[in-house]
């Protein structure tokens, strides 16, 4: 479903990704594991079109995404939760979660169904719906960021270090949510990055290791 071939990305003149090959099939659960500065976030940003490719290709369902502006990618069914949450602080949790669906211009029924799916999967957010995102704790913010990604991520979910900074209990809870999600939505593809692969073990089937902008191995 998603495939990166020889992807090269430069930031401020420095080559950060040096020929990344990565494939996430439909229903695949892939972990992108690597140390700090290895290029995990850069890979996600390249997939979302937030950084231009110097070379290589990013394909989704066989279609080249290189020429597709970043803002048109959520319409493909891709949802992205950046590593530092990046919620809009003056909006409420609900406004943050609705916004990606609203800008897609979905029919009312479809919009409602998508939000239902999110609230159902993340019931702890329901009572926080009217809270300003800027007033959330770190863990609540992570949940809200996951919710916002889920609204458009009906086919592919990109999660950049979702466990980072979570207290152990919250990390367990977050893991449960993901496990339940992939259990329920068999064809949903998942790409999740982490510096500590143990946390991902319960719900990934492939581990890709990235080091200094190169994929070292992809093991099942």
């Amino acid at each position, binding site marked *: 479903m998603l495939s990166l071939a020889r992807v090269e990305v430069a930031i401020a003149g420095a080559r950060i990704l040096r020929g990344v090959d990565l494939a996430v099939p439909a229903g695949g659960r892939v972990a992108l594991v690597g140390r700090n500065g290895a290029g995990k976030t850069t890979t996600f*940003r390249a997939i*979302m*079109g*937030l950084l231009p490719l110097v070379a290589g290709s990013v394909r989704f369902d066989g279609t080249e995404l290189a020429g597709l*502006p*970043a*803002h*048109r*990618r*959520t*319409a493909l069914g891709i949802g*992205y939760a*950046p590593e530092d949450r*990046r*919620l*809009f*602080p*003056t*909006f409420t949790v609900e*406004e943050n979660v609705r*916004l*990606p669906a*609203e*800008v*897609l211009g979905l029919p009312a029924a479809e919009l409602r169904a998508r939000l239902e799916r999110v609230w159902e999967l993340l019931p702890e957010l329901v009572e926080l719906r009217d809270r300003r995102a*800027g007033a959330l704790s770190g863990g609540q913010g992570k949940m809200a960021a996951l919710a*916002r990604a889920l609204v*458009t991520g009906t086919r592919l979910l990109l999660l950049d270090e979702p466990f980072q900074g979570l207290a152990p209990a919250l990390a367990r809870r977050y893991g449960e949510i993901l496990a339940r999600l992939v259990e329920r939505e068999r064809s949903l593809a998942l790409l999740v990055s982490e510096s500590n692969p143990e946390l991902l073990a319960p719900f990934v089937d492939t581990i890709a290791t990235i080091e200094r902008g190169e994929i070292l191995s992809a093991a099942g």
Partner: protein
Amino acid sequence: MGLLFLLAALDGLAYAAQVFLVAVGLTLVFGVLKILNVAHGSLFAIGAYLASTLVGLVGVPWLSLLALAMAALAVGVVLGPVIERGLLARIYEKEHVLQLLVTFALLMILEDVQKLVWGVQPLFEDAPVRLLGQVEVGGIVYTVYQLLLLPGVALLVLVVLAWFLRRTLLGRTIVAVTHDREAAEAIGIDSRRVYLLTFTIGAALAAMGGALAAPTTSLVPGIGVQTIVLSFAVVATAGLGRIEGAAATALLIGLGRSFAVYFTPELEVVVPYLLMVAVLLVRPAGLFGSTELRRV
């Protein structure tokens, strides 16, 4: 003394209304584009001159208010997109110093264009003020235009803008880009479109400030520069990117200036900047600004 006080308050209110219209556009544009648009002052000046010309052209007094609105709209929808697409879109990735220089150059160019088109002789066209007549408040005869129309329009702009930004989808996309352009793109917002829309709104607001100011003053070269400097003071005092903050600060600075005019005329010009310095010394992020969250 009491009369003087009242007069200063009324003048200050009318003045604050004009200043607010310009400053709010400046702060809105800065919030999204992250460019401090020095040429915002030219849009004010061109709006003022165009309004005078249109008012003179229509001749019929009761159409003169419409002429003011048309001038603001015309500058917004014509110059706004031309400047944003033609010039600013090329420098978003560049350094701030360069951006500042480019908009400064644009200010100079537009100032010359304005002199070419309208000349350097003072232009005075007060048909809209005469149309609305005068009323007496507390023993002072004051124009309805300055007493009610200017503050009324400013208040309306504040309310409509706040509603637009909070309650409409288009407005929320502007706020989202103000907060975090990349995150906005990643959830499906076309930031180029938001830039264009925001700059057009900002240009129209600047021109509206000019158009509304035109009937109350003689237009001379240099009003654009004067306006942008004062707007900077308002926006910096308020904290960049805050629209209610711009309103409250415009009021503070408008009143401060007009009280100075009546009570310490030698300080008239410096009072806004004294207020700015005083505020920034105590609160470097501005009265309503906060360093971590930038709100609209």
